């Protein structure tokens, strides 16, 4: 009798939980709502941008999407990877190009977008298509393109009567002048792990862009004398005090330092302009950009390109509707409607870009007219298992440039192991 009462009690408590729980699941109605996953958290978060895009695609195609942001890249990658084989796979998700994308393509987790690429063939160049081709299919498409120039404070340059450097010597002169005036030339950090590859890739492409590609793809070793030479030059710059403390905050605090002329320059993707500099109070007219000159004159003009791809999961539900949304998003209008909010370069080269700030327009003109070679960012250009170890080794080097020997040895070990395992 009493036992029955107790069971009843427990049931009464558990039951509402169940009902509450099921009642809160996404309501089932006729309207199809797609989903998109991304890790663009932080400042600014891309959530409102995707929300806006959902409204745009609803208007254009009749289908909108919800977007889910993940707070950390590692957890995001783990979640996406484990959901891809299941029917929880997201319709669309942001990813990285080259090696990071190849992993997913190799496991047959991505939807082949070849028909859409064929449809938009005259808008995207052949090299872009190649960048997204693995095997005989094209996967994903670029949401936005970001270049990696040196951002500089025009006021600092004016105060010290400096010119934008076009050669390495001029560049060194700029840095030394700043140092003498008590201004740290560059924002730099090991915090967040990934920013350590920024100077590394610049030093290598400044030595020889082909060497950079070979290094990323396993045809050159990290102990190659030219790589070591680039490291040594970088080490000299660190020792001379060209960079802020390795533990610096290069975001809000960094923007403050930039604004108050404590720091003169920052080497960062074009997104840094609208994501960090202007929102933290740096006046637009004070921001300039130039391409870092190569320290080896034979290396030519090079700049790092970061493509932000959106890909489609093969196992996702509502594939037809997803394809319609992607089709629209790949079009010039669709693509620009999204990047307009980021103030980024459209992934579709035919996309209108009149919203770009002048400094970015000028940069793009320079890239297009001065025969500048585009190179993929190290984060994507080298296989993930190497990159994950390498960014930590670069951090070791940035904190203590005397550790070069250890760093090179460790890099060689991880690269050799990786390339041996895939052969």
């Amino acid at each position: 009798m009493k036992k029955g009462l107790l069971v009843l009690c427990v049931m009464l408590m558990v039951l509402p939980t169940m009902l509450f729980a099921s009642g809160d699941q996404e309501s089932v109605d006729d309207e199809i709502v797609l989903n998109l996953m991304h890790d663009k958290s932080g400042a600014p978060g891309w959530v409102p941008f995707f929300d806006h895009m959902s409204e745009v695609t609803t208007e254009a195609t009749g289908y909108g999407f919800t977007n889910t942001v993940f707070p950390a890249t590692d957890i995001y990658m783990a979640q996406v990877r484990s959901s891809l084989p299941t029917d929880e796979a997201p319709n669309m998700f942001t990813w990285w190009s080259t090696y990071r994308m190849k992993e997913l393509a190799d496991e047959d987790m991505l939807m082949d977008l070849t028909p859409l690429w064929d449809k938009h063939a005259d808008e995207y160049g052949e090299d872009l298509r190649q960048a997204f081709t693995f095997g005989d299919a094209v996967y994903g498409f670029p949401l936005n393109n970001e270049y990696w120039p040196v951002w500089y404070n025009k006021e600092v340059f004016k105060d010290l009567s400096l010119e934008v450097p076009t050669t390495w010597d001029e560049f060194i002169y700029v840095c030394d002048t700043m140092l003498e005036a008590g201004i740290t030339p560059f924002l730099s950090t090991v915090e967040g792990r990934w920013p350590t590859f920024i100077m590394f890739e610049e030093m290598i492409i400044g030595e020889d862009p082909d060497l950079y590609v070979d290094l990323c793809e396993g045809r050159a070793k990290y102990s190659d004398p030219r790589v070591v030479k680039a490291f040594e030059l970088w080490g000299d710059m660190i020792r001379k005090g060209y960079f802020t403390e390795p533990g610096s905050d290069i975001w809000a605090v960094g923007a403050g330092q930039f604004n108050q002329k404590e720091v003169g320059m920052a080497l960062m993707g074009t997104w840094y302009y609208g994501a960090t500099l202007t929102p933290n109070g740096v006046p637009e007219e004070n921001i300039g950009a130039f391409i870092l000159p190569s320290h080896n004159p034979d290396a030519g003009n090079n700049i790092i390109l970061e493509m932000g791809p959106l890909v489609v999961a093969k196992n996702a539900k509502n594939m037809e509707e997803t394809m319609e949304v992607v089709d629209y998003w790949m079009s010039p209008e669709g693509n620009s409607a999204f990047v307009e909010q980021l103030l980024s370069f459209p992934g579709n080269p035919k996309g209108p870009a009149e919203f770009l700030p002048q400094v970015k327009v000028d940069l793009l003109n320079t890239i297009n007219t001065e025969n500048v070679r585009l190179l993929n960012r190290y984060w994507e250009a080298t296989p993930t298992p190497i990159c994950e170890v390498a960014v930590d080794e670069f951090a070791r080097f940035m904190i203590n440039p005397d550790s070069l020997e250890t760093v090179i040895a460790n890099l060689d070990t991880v690269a050799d192991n990786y390339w041996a395992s895939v052969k």
Partner: protein
Amino acid sequence: MKKKLSSSMLIIYTALVLLAIIWILPIAASLLAAFKTPADFGSHKFYQFPTSFGLIGNLRDIFEVYRLHDHFLSSMYYSMVATFLAIIFSSMAAYSLIRLKPRFSFLLFIIIYSGTIFPFQMYLIPLYKTFNNLGLYNTRLGMILVYTALVIPFSLFVYRGFFTTMPRSIEEAAIIDGCSSTGIYLKICMPQAFAPTAVIALFQMTWIWNDLLFGMILSKSVAIRPIMVAMATMAGIGGGSIPRQMTGVLFTSIPTVILFISLQKYFIAGNSTVSSLK
């Protein structure tokens, strides 16, 4: 003698005040940061007062961009329901293990208690897979179930300690009166167990409210995700803005601080729970 005593008191007070200042400094610095605009924060020293009132703008950001208020209710719900379920189930189990003494009672205790020992990361991947297979991934039910399971072991531990030391005389009288085990549990044991229940409620609700790991792995939509995931989103890869994050710290700490203030007398002053923790 008297003089010596007061000098030792002086030392004690000085030490405590110094320590308290160290403890308050981070909170004070955070509060100040929450009231600054990002530009203000980037260009002024931490102790300088804000030049313009940034809190409103920061609040707007944490609500509009990071939707912290959306997650607030979910997390409330999880911490209340899961703690409630854990209190029921663990007190029942503890009562049975101590008073009814089924066979293998110590083994059963160790099995349940083992849940407090292992690092939580160990459960993550298998749980994620199982939840996906059972359709529990990204549901409120799933979150409730996993949180309940995670807080049961410690709750059981506390109740078990409490019931071990609770005097048996009243119960024995009740048994003679013909009261059943269920009756004794409901009418005699639980009403006396108010203090350990308060301690469990405080610790476990706070724990669930503050959880990041499980929320991050087992949920993905705004409606389901607990609040700490949203909070962590603010510090994501694009680099967070400290004033905004501090506003988030402030906002998300309100419930746990209130809970602590309202329940503190049960564990700081009283000694009734001491026995439970032995």
